[in-house]
C-alpha cells in the first residue's frame, strides 16, 4: 500500500501517485492469517506534488508553495518498502525504507507579507521504524522506534544564490519512550540516567556555496563541493521528558516543555567533533541539562502587513560539562585543553522590559531582494547579585558562569549578566553575480564600502546589548570555587578584545563563505564591516561596577578575507586585512557614569596578516625569579620552580602593524596612530607606529607584534605585606596563573607630538623617531583572592 500522505490545510493537489489494488479479506481468509510474518508493501511512486501546504494559527497562515517529492534524476519512480507486523506482545511495528528521492519547496511564505524565506530543495532517503504498543493505563509505548534520515544534498536558494549542505544525517532512536496525554498536554517520558530513552546522531559532511547565477543548477546533487566548511558529527543520548501543550503565548499555538539531560559518557565515541582538513575540535564525555518551567511557545502573529513566527521563553536553564576538549591536530587523544562546564539562566524581566524571544520574518535585509530571513532577537541572561554574607564577595546563588578545569583545579568566570535586543538578517549575497551582484560605488577597501561580498551575509541592525561579569573564582572543586572570593581575571580576555563589561549598539554585517582563503582546503572565510556606537567598555571592573571605563565610545572595524580554521596546533583566527578606528569620548575612573575623567582617546589601527590562535597546553613548568628547566637548577639560580601541569590554554595574538604611507592602494587612508587628549585640551599623539622584521628588507613584516598568554589554574606561594606565608586550609592558595609574553623584532614609531590646549596650538614634536628591537617581555603572574 502506498503510504505517502501530506497533512494539508489549504488547497492540496496530489498527482502522479501510484495506485495499488486493495482487496477485502473474508472471515475464512482472516482465520488463516497467523500474523507472524507481517505485510510487506513495495511501492514504485511517480511522485507527489502539492500546490500549497498551509499551517494556520489565530488566523495567520504560514504556507509552503510548490511542494514536490519526485524520483531522482535518471529514474521514473521512487521506491518505498513498508513492512507492517504485530508482535506476539501486541506491539505494532511499521518499518519504512525509502530510497533516494528529490524534494522541493519553491517558497516558504507568510500570508500578508510580500517576502519569502526562500526556496529549499534537495535529495534525501530514510529508514524509519514506528513501534507502538498500548499500556494498561492508557499510555503508548514507542520504545524501539527509529528514524534515520539522510539528506545527500540540501539547497537553500535565496535571491537565486545557493547555500548547500552536504551529507546531512539525522538519526533518532527511541530506546525507552512512553507517550501519554494529560489534560491538553502530550508527554513523552524518555527514561532515566540508567534507562536512557533517546539516541541522537547528527552529521554534516560539508557546507558549500554557489554564489552566482552563471553556474546555477550545474552542481546538481553529486558534484563535489569545491570549497567547504569542515564536517560535523554529534552523538548524544538523552533522558528525562518533553511535553507538548496546545496553545502558545496567546491564543492558538504550541508550547514545548523540555526537561532533558543530553549525555555521552562513552570514551570511544566523541559527543561532538568538527574536522577541518583532518584537524580536530572534539569534545568527549559530555552531559548537559535543559529545562524550562513555562516552556518555549510558538505562535504565528499577524501584525498588520508584517507577520512573523514568534518563539518565546520566559525561563530557560541549561548547564553542561564536558570532560575533555581536544583542540587541533589529528590525534583524538592529544592536545586536550582540559574540561569545560557552565550554567546559563535565561529569565524574562517585565519590570525592566527585558524578554527572551526570537521572531522570524520572511525576507532579508532592506535592499536585498524579496527573499531571506529576518530575525528580531531579544535575550536576558541573569545571575544573582554577589553574596557577601561571609564578609567577602562570592558568587550569588543563581550564577551564570563558565568553568575551566585545568589539571583538576577549577576556575569560574562568574556572575554573567547580559541583555539586549535587535535585528539580525540572513541573505545570500554576491559581489559579481550578473543578476543580483553588487560591487558597490566605492572601493572594497574603503570604510564606507557599499557593495556585497560572496556568501551568507548576517546583517546586524541596532543590536543594543549589554553584558558584565562579576569576577573569577578558583577552587580545587567546583563547590569550593563557587564559595570562593571573587577577584579580577576577566581582564585577560582584553587581548581578544572581549571586555569584562560592555554596553554597545551594533550595526553592520559579517559575510561568511566556505573554504580557507589561505592555502585552500576546508575552513570559513569572512568579511566584515561592523560599527559599534554608544559603547561603554570596562578595561577593569570590580563586582560593584567600579573600575576604568571607556565611555561614550564608537568603534568601527573592517576585515577583508578573514579566516577561521582548525590547524595542527589549534584554532586559528586569521584577521586578513583589518583596520579600525576607536574613539573614546571619555576615560572614566571609578563609576562609568560619575567617575573622574582621564580625557579622550583615539586609536586607529591598520594590520595585514594578523591572527589570533588558541591551542591546548598552558605554561607547563616555570622558573620564577631565576632560570632553569628543573627544580634543582631553578633553585640554584635563586628561582622558585612551579609545575602548572600539562593542561591549560595558550592564546597567541599576532599583530602585523603596517607602515603608513605605503603605495599599496588597499592601505590608502589608513594608519596606526593614537591620540590622548586630557581634560584641559592638551593632547599627546603617537603617529605611525608599525612592526617590521629588523635589519634586512625594511618592508618585511612577517614576525609582527606577539602577545602570547598561557593560562592555568595552579597553587602558588604568597606572602602578605608582613612577609608571612599565606595559607588556605594549610595549603598554598590556588590562583589564576597567566604567563604573558610580548615579543617582537622591531617596533617603529615615527613621531610623538604634544599639542597645547589653545585654539592656535601647533603640535610640538617630542620624538621624531623611536625604534624598539629584540623585545621579549614576560609577566608571569598568579592571582589569588584576598579574603
Amino acid at each position, binding site marked *: 500500500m502506498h503510504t505517502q500522505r501530506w497533512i494539508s490545510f489549504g488547497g492540496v493537489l496530489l498527482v502522479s501517485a501510484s495506485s495499488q489494488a486493495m482487496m477485502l479479506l473474508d472471515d475464512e481468509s482472516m482465520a488463516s492469517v497467523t500474523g507472524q510474518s507481517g505485510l510487506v508493501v513495495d511501492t514504485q511512486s511517480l511522485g507527489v506534488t502539492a500546490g500549497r501546504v498551509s499551517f494556520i494559527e489565530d488566523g495567520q497562515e504560514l504556507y509552503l508553495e510548490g511542494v514536490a517529492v519526485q524520483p531522482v534524476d535518471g529514474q521514473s519512480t521512487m521506491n518505498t518498502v513498508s513492512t507492517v507486523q504485530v508482535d506476539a506482545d501486541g506491539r505494532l511495528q511499521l518499518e519504512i525504507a525509502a530510497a533516494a528521492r528529490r524534494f522541493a519547496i519553491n517558497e516558504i511564505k507568510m500570508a500578508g507579507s510580500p517576502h519569502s524565506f526562500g526556496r529549499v530543495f534537495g535529495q534525501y532517503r530514510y529508514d524509519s521504524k514506528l513501534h507502538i504498543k498500548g499500556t494498561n493505563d492508557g499510555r503508548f509505548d514507542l520504545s524501539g522506534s527509529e528514524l534515520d534520515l539522510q539528506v545527500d544534498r540540501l539547497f537553500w536558494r535565496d535571491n537565486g544564490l545557493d547555500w548547500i549542505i552536504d551529507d546531512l544525517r539525522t538519526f533518532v532512536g527511541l530506546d525507552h519512550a512512553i507517550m501519554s496525554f494529560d489534560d491538553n498536554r502530550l508527554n513523552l517520558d524518555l527514561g532515566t540516567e540508567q534507562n536512557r530513552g533517546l539516541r541522537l546522531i547528527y552529521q554534516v559532511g560539508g557546507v558549500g556555496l554557489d554564489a552566482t547565477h552563471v553556474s546555477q543548477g550545474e552542481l546538481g546533487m553529486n558534484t563535489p563541493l569545491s570549497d567547504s566548511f569542515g564536517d560535523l558529527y554529534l552523538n548524544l543520548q538523552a533522558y528525562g521528558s518533553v511535553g507538548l501543550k496546545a496553545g502558545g503565548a496567546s491564543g492558538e499555538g504550541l508550547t514545548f516543555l523540555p526537561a532533558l539531560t543530553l549525555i555521552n559518557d562513552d570514551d570511544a565515541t566523541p559527543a561532538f567533533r568538527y574536522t577541518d582538513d583532518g584537524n580536530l575540535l572534539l569534545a568527549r564525555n559530555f552531559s548537559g541539562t535543559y529545562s524550562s518551567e513555562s516552556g518555549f511557545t510558538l505562535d504565528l502573529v499577524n501584525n498588520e502587513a508584517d507577520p512573523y513566527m514568534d518563539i518565546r521563553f520566559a525561563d530557560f536553564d541549561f548547564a553542561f560539562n564536558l570532560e575533555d576538549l581536544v583542540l587541533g591536530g589529528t590525534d583524538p587523544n592529544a592536545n586536550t585543553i582540559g574540561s569545560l562546564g557552565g550554567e546559563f539562566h535565561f529569565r524574562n524581566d517585565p519590570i525592566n522590559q527585558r524578554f527572551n524571544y526570537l521572531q522570524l520574518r520572511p525576507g532579508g535585509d532592506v535592499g536585498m531582494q524579496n527573499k531571506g530571513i529576518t530575525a528580531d532577537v531579544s535575550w536576558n541572561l541573569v545571575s544573582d547579585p554577589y553574596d557577601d554574607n561571609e564578609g567577602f564577595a562570592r558568587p550569588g546563588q543563581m550564577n551564570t558562569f563558565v568553568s575551566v578545569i585545568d589539571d583538576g583545579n577549577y576556575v569560574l568566570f562568574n556572575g554573567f549578566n547580559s541583555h539586549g535586543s535587535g535585528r539580525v538578517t540572513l541573505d545570500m549575497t554576491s559581489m559579481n553575480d550578473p543578476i543580483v551582484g553588487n560591487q558597490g560605488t566605492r572601493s572594497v577597501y574603503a570604510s564606507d564600502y557599499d557593495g556585497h561580498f560572496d556568501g551568507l551575509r548576517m546583517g546586524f541592525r541596532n543590536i543594543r546589548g549589554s553584558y558584565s561579569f562579576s569576577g573569577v573564582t578558583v577552587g580545587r572543586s567546583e563547590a569550593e570555587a563557587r564559595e570562593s572570593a571573587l577577584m579580577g581575571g576577566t581582564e585577560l580576555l582584553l587581548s581578544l578584545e572581549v571586555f569584562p563589561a560592555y554596553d554597545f549598539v551594533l550595526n553592520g554585517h559579517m559575510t561568511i563563505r566556505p573554504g580557507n582563503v589561505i592555502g585552500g582546503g576546508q575552513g570559513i572565510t569572512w568579511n566584515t564591516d561592523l560599527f559599534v556606537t554608544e559603547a561603554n567598555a570596562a578595561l577593569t571592573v570590580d563586582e560593584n561596577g567600579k573600575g576604568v571605563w571607556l565611555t561614550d565610545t564608537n568603534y568601527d572595524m573592517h576585515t577583508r578575507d578573514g579566516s577561521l580554521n582548525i590547524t595542527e596546533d589549534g584554532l586559528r583566527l586569521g584577521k586578513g586585512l583589518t583596520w579600525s578606528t576607536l574613539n573614546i569620548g571619555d576615560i572614566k575612573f571609578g563609576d562609568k557614569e560619575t567617575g573622574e575623567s582621564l580625557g579622550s582617546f583615539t586609536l586607529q589601527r591598520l594590520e595585514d596578516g594578523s591572527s589570533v590562535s588558541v591551542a591546548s597546553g598552558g605554561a607547563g613548568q616555570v622558573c620564577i625569579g631565576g632560570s632553569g628547566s628543573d627544580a634543582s637548577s631553578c633553585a640554584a639560580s635563586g628561582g622558585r620552580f612551579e609545575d602548572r601541569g600539562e593542561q591549560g590554554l595558550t592564546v597567541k595574538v599576532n599583530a602585523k602593524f603596517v607602515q603608513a604611507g605605503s603605495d599599496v592602494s588597499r592601505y590608502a587612508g589608513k594608519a596606526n596612530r593614537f591620540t590622548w587628549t586630557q581634560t584641559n585640551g592638551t593632547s599627546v599623539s603617537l603617529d605611525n607606529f608599525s612592526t617590521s622584521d629588523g635589519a634586512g628588507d625594511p618592508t618585511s613584516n612577517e614576525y609582527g607584534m606577539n602577545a602570547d598568554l598561557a593560562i592555568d589554574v595552579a597553587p602558588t606561594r604568597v606572602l602578605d605585606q608582613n612577609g608571612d606565608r599565606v595559607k588556605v586550609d594549610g595549603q598554598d592558595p590556588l590562583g589564576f596563573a597567566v604567563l604573558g609574553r610580548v615579543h617582537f623584532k622591531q617596533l617603529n614609531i615615527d613621531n610623538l607630538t604634544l599639542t597645547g590646549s589653545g585654539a592656535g596650538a601647533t603640535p610640538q614634536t617630542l620624538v621624531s623617531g623611536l625604534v624598539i628591537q629584540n623585545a621579549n617581555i614576560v609577566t608571569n603572574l598568579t592571582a589569588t*583572592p584576598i579574603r
Partner: protein
Amino acid sequence: MAILTGFRSMFVASCLFMPSLLLALEPLTNDDLDAVHGQGGVYLTGEFTINKDGGPLWYAEPGPGQFDDFGGAKQQRNCGSSANPKECGLRVAYQLNEGWLVLDDVTGGFAFEGLTLRTSYIATDEKGDAFDKEVVEIGLPKQVRSNEFRYTLATSSSGTWVNNADSRILSVRQDGTINMQGNLLLFPVEVP
C-alpha cells in the same frame, strides 16, 4: 592593537606612565586602613622579565636559539664575549637631532610574592581632609628580588643596529633584594 595582557595589574602598570596620575607612596596607618573599603582584590605572585631567554631578533651563538618562534632566521649579535657569549637584551633607540640615543641590552627581571591589587574608596586624606575618591591600590610586596637586571646607555648613528657602531656611555647591572613597603594609590586628578 592594544596589547593588554590580562589582570588589572598590567593596565595599572601602563597607568604609571600617565602624567596626570598622582602617585602617592605613603604607609597607611591603622586609621587610614579603617577608612579603606576593599572590594575583593588579589594577591599577585610572580615575576616581570625582559629578555630573560634572549630575544627574537638576535642570537648570541649558533644553536637552536638562532631561529625565531616561527622558524625564521635571527641575526647573530653577541652581547657577551667570545669566550662567554650572552644573549642580547631589548634595545630602545631614540632619535636626536643628529644620531640616536640608545638604551641597549636591557635584560633581567623582578620577582615578588604577594603584591596586592584592589580598588578602594578613601574617604579622607592623610591630613584628615575630605578625599572621597575611588583609587586603585597596589600593596607593595615586602621584598622584590632583582635578577641580573642590566642595561647599557649608548649613542649610535643609526636607529637600527649597526655592528660595533655603538659608542657606549655606561652599563648598569643590578642584583639582590629591594625592600618595599606601603601602598601605591592611583587616581586621576584635575589638570589645570
